[in-house]
């Protein structure tokens, strides 16, 4: 079942999302990338209604890119989060709302601070030290309450992330086979092989 989670550390944000595409009771694909790179220092993990997710994520991606091209400077994480929230909130009261839940991880190159935002399809926005979406959140949030350290090094952060993945794999009924993990820090975004 669809699960995404993220945590912040000293100067970075780690995001993890499962890689399965499900249709009814069938796994159709096991290598889907559900974390988009919005700008040089901004990542977005998306989950929710199939179709809506990709459509909405691409809409956001293109508009963030457009801002970057027009202004020669990317939108900073708090501003990007506000804009994406407004898009979802407006969509909620439209004829056909997007049902997409998001985790937004970014590194602010102006203040040298990592930011992590939790957002649901209502357009509820909250800045958090760690976050999760989907059924996995019921296991991972309690783990992160105990093990999360905002001053942790990348290695320690990855260790905590592995605990979460292991717990989801162990306890969730239909657990995802693989997770894709990405990191964003002062050097930009990159994928991490576990």
């Amino acid at each position: 079942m669809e699960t995404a989670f993220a945590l912040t550390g000293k100067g970075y944000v780690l995001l993890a999302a499962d890689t399965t595409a499900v249709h009814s009771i069938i796994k159709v694909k096991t290598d889907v990338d559900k974390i988009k790179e919005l700008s040089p220092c901004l990542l977005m993990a998306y989950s929710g209604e199939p179709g809506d997710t990709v459509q909405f994520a691409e809409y956001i991606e293109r508009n963030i890119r457009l801002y970057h091209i027009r202004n020669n400077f990317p939108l900073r994480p708090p501003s990007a989060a506000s804009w994406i929230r407004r898009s979802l909130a407006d969509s909620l009261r439209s004829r056909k709302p997007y049902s997409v839940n998001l985790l937004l991880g970014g590194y602010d190159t102006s203040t040298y601070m990592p930011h992590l935002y939790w957002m649901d399809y209502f357009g509820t926005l909250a800045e958090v030290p760690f976050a999760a979406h989907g059924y996995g959140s019921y296991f991972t949030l309690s783990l992160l309450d105990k093990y999360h350290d905002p001053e942790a090094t990348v290695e320690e952060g990855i260790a905590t992330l592995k605990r979460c993945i292991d717990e989801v794999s162990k306890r969730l009924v239909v657990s995802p086979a693989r997770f894709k993990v990405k990191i964003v820090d002062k050097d930009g975004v990159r994928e991490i092989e576990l």
Partner: protein
Amino acid sequence: MSIMQHNGGSVIAMVGKDCVAIASDLRLGVQSLSITSDFEKIFPVTDRLFVGLPGLATDVTTLREQFRYRVNMYTIKEEREIEPQTFAQLVSSTLYERRFGPYFIEPVMAGMQKTPAGGYAPFIAATDLIGCLNFAKDFVVAGTASEKLFGVAEGLWEPDLEAEDLFETISQTLLNALDRDAFSGWGAVVHVITKDKVITRKLKGRMD
């Protein structure tokens, strides 16, 4: 479960002697799952006026931005700050605009209103989600713990409390009501407003 209870949260405002207080919890949840314990629901409008927006969290942010925009436009056009009484009407009409597809918020306002004599008088008000105003002389409550807040406030509040006593009364009222509500809690924030200053304090609460 109603959409008004989806994210949880409560706000209360009280009148004192030459002061008013407004307080809220800090929880943001999704039904019974708590997401964060620093979700503020009370926002400053002017130096002497605060508005609390308990209800659906997405509308807390949307309305906060909406009110900020409208108050800024008012300030520019009128070349003066908005008075609490006027702001209450602004809140009411903003909500009634969405009469048949409302924002799921029950605003609470607290501030010091300018009097014709040149002094300041305490002002509190609340509305329902479609903007029906309620000007109270003692206290107003809203949110998931509103029934409990009514009960405790009815027992603890008394007229003409000084700022420090009002702070104690509103804090005890809020904290004790929150402990009986599963959807509110996780800490609280209290603002006490007098004619020349605002005292803001964060309260620690039960984290369960």
